[in-house]
């Protein structure tokens, strides 16, 4: 007993020592998927990250006397992750918005960027502003100032805003004609133009904003120390050296540094009036977002119902083919089921939308519908196959002795009984599909979860958007479960 207590004391002591050492680490969150020049895995050593934000983080850590440690967090979740305490600061091309300034401890701006419009080279003469893009598709990264600008341009200029989860595919889709323009930071546009020629970026900014570091609310003491370090680095040329190294230094930065060092107040965004949800009361913001959440819920419902219908039809075909088909058909269908079940749905969606785009350019909604349907068809087929096999053999023999053909037996005797057995797992799958449909946001379809994420990012909180989103999903799935229970009762 004494030994046990001693061991616990020793372990506790060790943990306490570790905790005491933890302030020596400066954890900074970023998204390496964002790539160069912000943060990216070092091509020569993928276990470490490189980029100008990496060097800014190192500069801050050094000023604080700590060891920098990178924490990978998805770009759209960095704010929430900081509030959770996963890292001390978020630094990954994080935009300076009124919502962030209101909801978090935000550092002073350390880089100024322009929101710039890129169009295909052939369209450069006629498509110069958002007003020129009426009825055309304009893409950007979701949850950004640029997306907010595009939503406003949907109302003002009749453009079609398309949201992406990454900053690479908007440009590739622009080049293959899925988009007519891209609105993004000049840093991203410059980088992409070097690797994917064929588009032109208009230098006139649609808006101007900055990159900032974001800290949890209440962490103002650390934020102020970081501001001091950044000002020193602006003054002694260390920040300039970093930006020059990454080829992002320009006159805008000279102007920003002068403003910062002169103690001038710097507006988060200029050239566009941000109408942030964070500035509204929670209730007003919710009321403002409700129509778009309802629209997104309709997209989720239509997508799920359509995909399920196709999946059921294909699933029945696959199951029947595997039970009644020839050897080759059975092998091919088994191969299909195993391939689909053995690979992630997300990968299948990417392949359908981006992978085969050179050969077949599917619209985002069609690719989403097909991706979900083809994936769920494999799972449905296994349910039906199991259900068909579960029909007692005596039933099939009775049908045979009555002279029914194999097809008639399937249609009139085996199928209907199997369908009753399959109903419960089918309902379960449909409810799962309703939720899995959120994955199609990677193909630029703004469904319920994506719209909720946009709402939450703009509001700076997940509490209300999450609750509304959950209620809408429940409102869709509960009646379905009720209907299935009624059918089951009726058939029993």
């Amino acid at each position, binding site marked *: 007993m004494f030994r046990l207590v001693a061991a616990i004391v020793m372990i506790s002591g060790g943990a306490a020592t570790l905790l005491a050492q933890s302030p020596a680490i400066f954890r900074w969150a970023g998204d390496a998927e964002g790539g160069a020049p912000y943060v990216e895995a070092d091509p020569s050593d993928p276990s470490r990250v490189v980029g100008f934000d990496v060097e800014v983080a190192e500069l801050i850590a050094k000023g604080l006397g700590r060891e920098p440690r990178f924490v990978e967090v998805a770009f759209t979740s960095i704010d929430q992750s900081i509030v959770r305490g996963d890292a001390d600061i978020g630094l990954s091309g994080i935009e300076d918005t009124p919502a962030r300034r209101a909801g978090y401890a935000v550092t002073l701006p350390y880089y100024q960027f322009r929101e710039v419009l890129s169009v295909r080279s052939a369209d450069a003469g006629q498509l110069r502003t958002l007003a020129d893009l009426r009825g055309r598709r304009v893409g950007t990264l979701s949850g950004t100032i640029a997306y907010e600008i595009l939503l406003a341009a949907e109302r003002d200029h009749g453009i079609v805003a398309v949201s992406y989860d990454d900053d690479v595919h908007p440009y590739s889709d622009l080049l293959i004609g899925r988009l007519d323009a891209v609105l993004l930071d000049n840093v991203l546009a410059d980088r992409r133009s070097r690797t994917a020629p064929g588009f032109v970026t208009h230098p006139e900014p649609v808006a101007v904003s900055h990159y900032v570091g974001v800290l949890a609310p209440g962490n103002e003491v650390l934020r102020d120390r970081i501001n001091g370090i950044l000002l020193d680095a602006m003054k002694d040329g260390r920040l300039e050296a970093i930006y020059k190294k990454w080829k992002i230094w320009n006159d805008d930065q000279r102007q920003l540094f002068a403003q910062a060092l002169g103690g001038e107040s710097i507006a988060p965004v200029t050239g566009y009036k941000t109408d942030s949800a964070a500035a509204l009361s929670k209730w007003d913001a919710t009321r403002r977002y409700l129509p778009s959440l309802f629209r997104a819920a309709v997209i989720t419902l239509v997508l799920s119902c359509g995909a399920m219908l196709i999946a059921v039809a294909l699933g029945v075909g696959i199951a029947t083919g595997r039970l009644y088909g020839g050897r080759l058909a059975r092998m091919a269908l088994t191969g299909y089921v195993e391939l689909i079940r053995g690979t992630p749905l997300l990968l299948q969606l990417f392949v359908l939308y981006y992978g085969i785009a050179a050969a077949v350019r599917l619209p985002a909604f069609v690719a989403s519908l097909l991706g979900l349907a083809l994936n769920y068809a494999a799972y449905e087929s296994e349910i039906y196959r199991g259900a068909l096999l579960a029909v007692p053999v005596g*039933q099939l023999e*009775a049908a045979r*002795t*009555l*002279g029914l053909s194999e097809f008639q037996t399937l249609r009139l*005797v085996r199928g209907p009984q199997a369908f009753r057995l399959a109903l419960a797992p089918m309902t379960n799958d449909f409810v799962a599909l309703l939720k899995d449909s959120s994955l199609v946001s990677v193909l630029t379809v703004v469904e319920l979860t994506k719209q909720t994420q946009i709402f939450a990012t703009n509001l700076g909180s997940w509490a209300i958007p999450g609750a509304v989103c959950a209620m809408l999903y429940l409102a869709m799935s509960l009646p379905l479960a009720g209907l299935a229970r009624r059918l089951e009762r009726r*058939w029993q």
Partner: protein
Amino acid sequence: MTPSTPGLHEESRLALRDVTLSRAGRPLIAGLNLDARPGDLIALRGPSGCGKTTILRAIAGLDPFERGTISVGDACLEGGTALNRATLHRLGRSVGLVFQFHCLFEHMSALQNICLAPRHVYRVAPEAAERAARDLLRQLGVESRADARPRELSGGEAQRVAIARALAVNPPVLLMDEPMASLDASRRAELGALLQKLTESGRTLLVTTHDERFAEDFATRVLTVESGTVRERI
């Protein structure tokens, strides 16, 4: 096409020649010969597990058999060969089978069970099929159970619905596996009389049974399976 009309004696001819049967590789019956004449009501007796049901299943084309030939009407099954679809189709129109455990279609009412084959195999109009089905149910004393699902029927009722289902397509040869098993004494007598009536128009019935009384009272011929051989009691 409509269900074949009883009275065509060639269709109700059943002949087994030197048939050898086995189950899961275990020999059951060897050298079985049988010539059933139109109008015969043959009782097939023997201890449990002796192979009575296996004989019926082989005649109905549900299981292959080792050797010999089975002829029913114009369908001929060869032992040791896989059953082909055309033969099975012809067989399906000549032979009806009432299973011991009924095997009624669980998702259909009694009436729908009976109408299924006339409507979908013989293309009888729905109204005519239903009329005939109700008539059969009345003859078998279960008309009131027309709309009941199989699980709502008693053992005896299910047995009679299964007989009605087999009779609905008017098979020249009717095989019945232990039809008396679920019936009380008075129902057995009723069923025996009904089976006799079914043979009057030239239909051949082969019925497995443990019921000695039934065999004596109603069968025109009695076959006994014993130690792998089948003997006819004269």
